[in-house]
């Protein structure tokens, strides 16, 4: 079947499983591309949180793919029916690839609302229940370039039974088949890429089965669901990803949902993941923090002759709470802290983002202390820039065989600060 023009070209595949390359031919006309490993641009209702298009474009090297989720869009179905020209045009997004997922990765959905035939999304007016038919009707209205098939991903809780996991795999495959039927018959979705969803909770056999069965279907790519930061430990996640990837074809992209911490990104790329949702900077922004972890690989951090962690380096002051994605991590600094009140350095020395080029920590601290809206704007600009630069550094490290340096740099800081 036609899956648009999308094509994954590798420049390097490392023995461990990391893949370096370019996802080409994105978009209905195929003129966009996205480097992998990479992340999507996170948005709420088509807007990068806090930013107008003018401020957004203060960022250079933006990902060409913008993520939207049905959590924010489903309630606008009637409006889009009347508009008829798709969500990109509706939201004034002229030059981006639109990638539609079911749920907003930054806002965990309540559980207990999934049935055999339906899943739920949560809009400003509450829960909206979607059947596969309604789900596809929405996709026809949104006219995304890529979208993720309907799935039952409710397996991430601690006490999910094997039976429940099996059911989620079954349901998700059934949803996929129903979506594919509509997809293939739909003019509105011609040229759009449909990603199949791999479920299976924490059961390796179910993960394999889900991957194997999904791979038999004519999907453009794969979405790994139910592995989000929270309950799952890193080793188990990597093991599950490995089980999945064994069953997936080489030539199609793999998106991991719900994972964004830099250390987890590194581990998952090593396990063979290509794409991430870019929501992590948003979480950091919402808690009034700025990303400040290091990822420069020019010099081996252990060789001793590198740039010493000088006075000018941002000092992260977070504790490790890998279990709770809303808690501050060691990759960021808490600008609400009084110590930044009279700190006239940029958030991160040498950072080229609009915030660091124009403002000091003391100013952002003041904006946070006074609850001013500009705090969210400036932190989004910085955190997004920092996160995108981290992915760029990761790709460079893959190209130059420096992933171990990068890992030491990114993780090393964690060790020194805790």
């Amino acid at each position: 079947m036609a899956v648009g023009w999308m094509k994954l070209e590798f420049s390097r595949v490392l023995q461990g499983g990391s893949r370096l390359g370019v996802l080409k031919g994105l978009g209905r006309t195929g003129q966009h591309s996205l480097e992998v490993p990479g992340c999507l641009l996170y948005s709420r209702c088509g807007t990068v949180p806090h930013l107008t298009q003018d401020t957004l474009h203060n960022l250079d090297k933006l990902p060409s793919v913008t993520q939207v989720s049905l959590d924010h869009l489903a309630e606008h179905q009637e409006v889009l029916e009347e508009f008829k020209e798709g969500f990109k045009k509706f939201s004034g997004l002229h030059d981006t690839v639109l990638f539609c997922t079911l749920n907003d990765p930054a806002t965990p959905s309540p559980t207990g609302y999934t049935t055999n035939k339906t899943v739920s999304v949560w809009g400003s007016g509450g829960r909206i229940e979607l059947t596969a038919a309604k789900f596809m009707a929405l996709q026809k209205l949104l006219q995304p370039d890529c979208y993720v098939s309907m799935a039952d991903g409710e397996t991430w809780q601690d006490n999910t039974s094997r039976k429940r996991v099996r059911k989620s795999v079954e349901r998700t495959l059934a949803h996929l088949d129903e979506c594919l039927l509509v997809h293939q018959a739909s003019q509105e979705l011609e040229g759009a890429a449909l990603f199949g969803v791999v479920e299976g909770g924490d059961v390796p056999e179910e993960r394999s089965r889900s991957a194997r069965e999904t791979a038999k279907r004519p999907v453009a790519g794969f979405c790994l669901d139910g592995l989000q930061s929270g309950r799952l430990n890193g080793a188990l996640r990597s093991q599950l990803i490995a089980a999945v990837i064994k069953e997936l074809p080489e030539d199609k992209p793999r998106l991991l949902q719900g994972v964004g911490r830099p250390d987890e990104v590194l581990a998952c790329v090593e396990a063979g993941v290509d794409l991430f949702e870019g929501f992590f900077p948003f979480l950091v922004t919402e808690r009034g923090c700025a990303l400040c972890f290091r990822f420069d690989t020019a010099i081996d951090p252990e060789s001793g002759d590198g740039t010493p962690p000088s006075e000018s380096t941002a000092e992260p002051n977070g504790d490790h709470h890998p279990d709770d994605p809303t808690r501050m991590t060691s990759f960021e600094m808490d600008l609400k802290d009084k110590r930044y009140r009279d700190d006239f350095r940029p958030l991160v020395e040498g950072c080229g983002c609009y915030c660091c080029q124009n403002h000091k920590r003391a100013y952002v601290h003041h904006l946070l202390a006074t609850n001013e809206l500009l705090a969210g704007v400036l932190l989004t600009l910085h955190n997004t820039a920092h996160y995108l630069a981290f992915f760029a550094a990761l790709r460079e490290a893959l190209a130059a065989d420096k992933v171990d340096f990068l890992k030491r740099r990114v993780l090393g800081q964690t060790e020194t600060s805790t």
Partner: protein
Amino acid sequence: MAATSACVETPPSTDMSFKKALAVASPLTLHIVAECPVTKARACDLKLPHCVVSTPVFMPVGTQGTMKGITADQLDALGCQICLGNTYHLGMRPGPDLIEKANGLHGFMNWKNNLLTDSGGFQMVSLVELSEVTEEGVTFKSPYDGKTILLSPEKSIAIQNSLGSDIMMQLDDVVSSTVTGPRVEEAMQRSIRWLDRCIAANSNPHKQNLFAIIQGGLNAGLRKTCLDEMTKRDVPGFAIGGLSGGEEKDDFWRMVTLSTDHLPREKPRYLMGVGYAVDLVVCVALGCDMFDCVFPTRTARFGSALVPWGSLQVKHKQYAKDFKPIDPDCRCPTCKRHSRAYLHALFKSDTAAMHHITIHNIAYQLNLMRSVRQSIVQGRFPDFIRAFMRRMFPSREQYPSWAVDALASVNITLE
């Protein structure tokens, strides 16, 4: 937009030293570009330390050293040449010492154009419950740590000197415009005494302009006395204060026009707290040059977009399927890209919806004043007013009578 007051070393010449002497006298020059032959309106170039301001001008209010979610670059791109900061808020947080360390408020917020700061007195009286006014100053309890603080004229100026604003306001004794009786006269007389203390306290007169504030409530006699006294002082500019606080509009405009009748032609006139479009246009006709108001930016955050026919409540259901821009004739970044329907939807998901309306509303205010200025320069301000009123109100019957009267007083008859 280069700093104009910096003195570069140049070979001495009589011309240079003459200019320098003037600059020391007052870091402000007002060049009257055009005067309306019918009304009291004028278009001026007001040269301030950071750039030239084209008047009449609306000055957006950035209370805490930020313009409500829009960046300094965005504000600059809208053509804003001067905006406000509030001394009370900034004096409390982050405090004058910190801002001084950051090279003033300009450095702290990274704003390259001009800043005006108020005295802090108004907020004290309006926001702080436990405040007491004596000859010494305003005593109040800090809402942050409960300490008793005295804001004297000297203290207000000291804070404003730390902020480094291009225009500072004297501390005045503010009484509500609806208060009558001897308190009004006391406040007016005290404001004159406080003006003298502010002038004496200004440690930076060669870089920061101190404006006097005309008081006197709604009493023409008291206003006149205040005008007579204050215009004897050689201050760089004058503000008309104590209005826009809930008084009858009939009283309001009469006090405004009385004030402009007696203010010197060669100095800027700032009408405090005025920002509704109709008020702006009428008060320009009455001879005012500068205006400020929180209304356009505050109302934006509630989803109210300003348009030539009034306002448009973006959050109302009727706009959910309206695919037109807020104002099809507006060329602001919001209207160029987004529809009413998208903004309506975005209000349910993200704060950027507010920023879009804030940008639009500031653009509306600045564009309105640019159009006013252009019409004054081109000698067609009376026609501009008539067209403006026709667009703003569905019919002649809906023109507010105070505006009709005020305009009639400056020879504008509305058909």
